[in-house]
């Protein structure tokens, strides 16, 4: 009984945090674009004259979406048209279940792992729901009964499928090194030290893997430089026929995907919730010296570390989005099939070779 | 009621029969193809049920191979349908009688 309550509390906390962070991302996006374009940015929305660096813009955006007409094309498919944004939103929401956001918490006799589900299949669970986001996009394109929407949906289908292959292969190296699919075990492995001082983060063990994973994951979020399915400035994409909250849901799903990708990057390549040299009992510095801390404080520091990492990578993705222009479609496909994929396979081979030599 | 191996096998048989009915009664090549996938999955279910019954992962590995074969089969089969559609402008299998005289 108590376990169920704790589990529900964890789910509730994660969902609430995720949704509010995704809402906050709209503000980050506006501010970042303003900074990049030398504007002041979202600073008009106010409540009784208070502006709070444009944070009310989030609410204004939500309200605007809420009061718009919900339009379904008369010749479109009503049910699938509604299902599209839901199917796009749902996978991003549930993928967080396997991501460990903190170390185990000991409260008296209670042992609470700060992760919703410790699954044996770990990363595969993420890929399962990653493959589901495809349906939302394609059904949205098809059910609008609009040539341009459908072409956008087809572009999205080809892009998502291609980059999912790259995403999977670029992760194999890291799975080989840690020998598991469970994310909490992967994270714990990363708290060891290399050469006595360097944290054994995935980025140091799999630098190429990270460089291949980042573009593949960004392509899955369908944002600039990979925004060909959407093409907001000219090509017209799969959600052309959407308005109101359904349109908002697509946008929201996009921001959630950014958060999922940053959490994944942090978990797999940057030590997850681990701060270098911080262990269960406290800090142990490589130059000698220790600083003992109670378990609760350590857990809180780790939680905060994870959030800082997520925030950093979310910011990095927004920065990339406002820096680069869009790829041409053939360039994007070439990058996937002739760039990332062969390099990922090479990465697997080299990793296997090194592992063989080291473990001999 | 305790769920036993037989329950899963009955479910598998029902799914397989539905697949057979689909193949026999439909004329749309895509739907026939989908029915074949249905039959394959009925078999997969039986394999996984047996794997648990005997505590042997061999059955699950067989599912792995069935999925691989299905992937290859679908890739080629759908390519054939695409070519067929280009030639005949239809996916109705009654209109495809090249081998008949």
């Amino acid at each position: 009984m108590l376990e169920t309550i704790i589990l529900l509390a964890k789910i509730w906390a994660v969902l609430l945090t995720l949704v509010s962070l995704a809402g906050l991302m709209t503000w980050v996006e506006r501010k970042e674009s303003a900074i990049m374009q030398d504007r002041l940015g979202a600073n008009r929305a106010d409540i009784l004259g208070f502006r709070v660096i444009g944070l009310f813009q989030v609410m204004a955006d939500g309200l605007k979406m809420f009061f718009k007409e919900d339009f379904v094309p008369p010749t479109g498919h009503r049910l699938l048209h509604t299902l599209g944004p839901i199917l796009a939103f749902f996978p991003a929401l549930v993928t967080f279940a396997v991501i460990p956001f903190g170390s185990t918490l000991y409260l008296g006799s209670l042992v609470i792992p700060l992760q919703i589900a410790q699954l044996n299949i770990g990363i595969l669970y993420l890929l399962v729901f990653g493959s589901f986001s495809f349906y939302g996009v394609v059904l949205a394109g098809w059910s609008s009964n609009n040539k341009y929407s459908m072409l956008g949906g087809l572009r999205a289908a080809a892009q998502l499928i291609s980059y999912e292959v790259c995403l999977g292969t670029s992760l194999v190296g890291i799975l080989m090194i840690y020998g598991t699919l469970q994310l909490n075990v992967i994270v714990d492995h990363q708290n060891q030290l290399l050469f006595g001082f360097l944290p054994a983060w995935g980025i140091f063990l799999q630098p190429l893997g990270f460089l291949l994973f980042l573009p593949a994951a960004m392509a899955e979020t369908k944002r600039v430089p990979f925004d060909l399915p959407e093409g907001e400035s000219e090509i017209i994409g799969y959600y052309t026929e959407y308005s109101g909250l359904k349109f908002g849901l697509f946008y929201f799903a996009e921001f959630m995907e950014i958060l999922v990708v940053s959490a994944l990057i942090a978990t797999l390549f940057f030590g997850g919730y681990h701060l270098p040299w911080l262990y269960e009992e406290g800090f142990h510095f490589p130059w000698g010296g220790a600083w003992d801390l109670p378990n609760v404080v350590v857990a809180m520091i780790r939680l905060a570390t994870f959030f800082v990492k997520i925030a950093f990578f979310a910011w990095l993705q927004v920065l990339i989005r406002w820096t680069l222009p869009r790829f041409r479609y053939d360039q994007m496909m070439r990058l996937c099939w002739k760039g990332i994929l062969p390099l990922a396979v090479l990465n697997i081979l080299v990793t296997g070779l090194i592992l063989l030599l080291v473990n001999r | 009621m305790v769920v036993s191996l037989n329950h899963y096998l009955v479910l598998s048989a029902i799914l397989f029969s539905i697949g057979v009915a689909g193949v026999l009664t439909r004329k749309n090549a895509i739907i026939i193809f989908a029915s074949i996938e249905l039959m394959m999955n009925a078999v997969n279910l039986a394999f996984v049920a047996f794997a648990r019954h005997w505590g042997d992962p061999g059955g699950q590995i067989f599912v792995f191979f069935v999925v691989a074969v299905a992937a290859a089969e679908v890739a080629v089969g759908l390519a054939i349908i695409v070519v067929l559609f280009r030639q005949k402008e239809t996916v109705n299998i009654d209109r495809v009688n090249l081998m008949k005289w």
Partner: protein
Amino acid sequence: METAFFLLFSALTIFCALMVILQKNPLASVLFLVMTLFWLAALFVLLSAPFIAAIQVIIYAGAIMVLFLFVLMLLNLKAIEEGVKPALKVTGVAVALILLVVAAVVLRSVPIPANTGFSRSAAELGSVESIGQMLFSVYLLPFEIASFLLLAGIIGAIVLAKKDRKP
């Protein structure tokens, strides 16, 4: 608990499977097939085979059904006039029913040997480790052959679907 889940999932599976063969529009049919596969994956999880369930959704729903959808959209296929004769329909359903009866008779009359010895715990059975170990030792040759089959599938699909270039 397991019984309730089994009943729920199997009812949903059978319903979606029926809809696959009853729908006029191929797109709806394919979408119902995706749902069937998803409920089957849920049944696999009940059968303590989480890895196979994941494979099922990633490859079947995430790749194979995507191909179906892609072809449907590419050819812009709508429901076609099938013109199935009622006699054929009745025969088809009858054959399927006879098959079901035969399967039931076989199931009743042939005893399935009980679990003999080499049992593993439920968690160990479907884990990635145990499957991986068997796949790369006992089933190594079939695994390699499967990779060749997939290669042949890729080449075959490209050769077939490629448009003839006029010289």
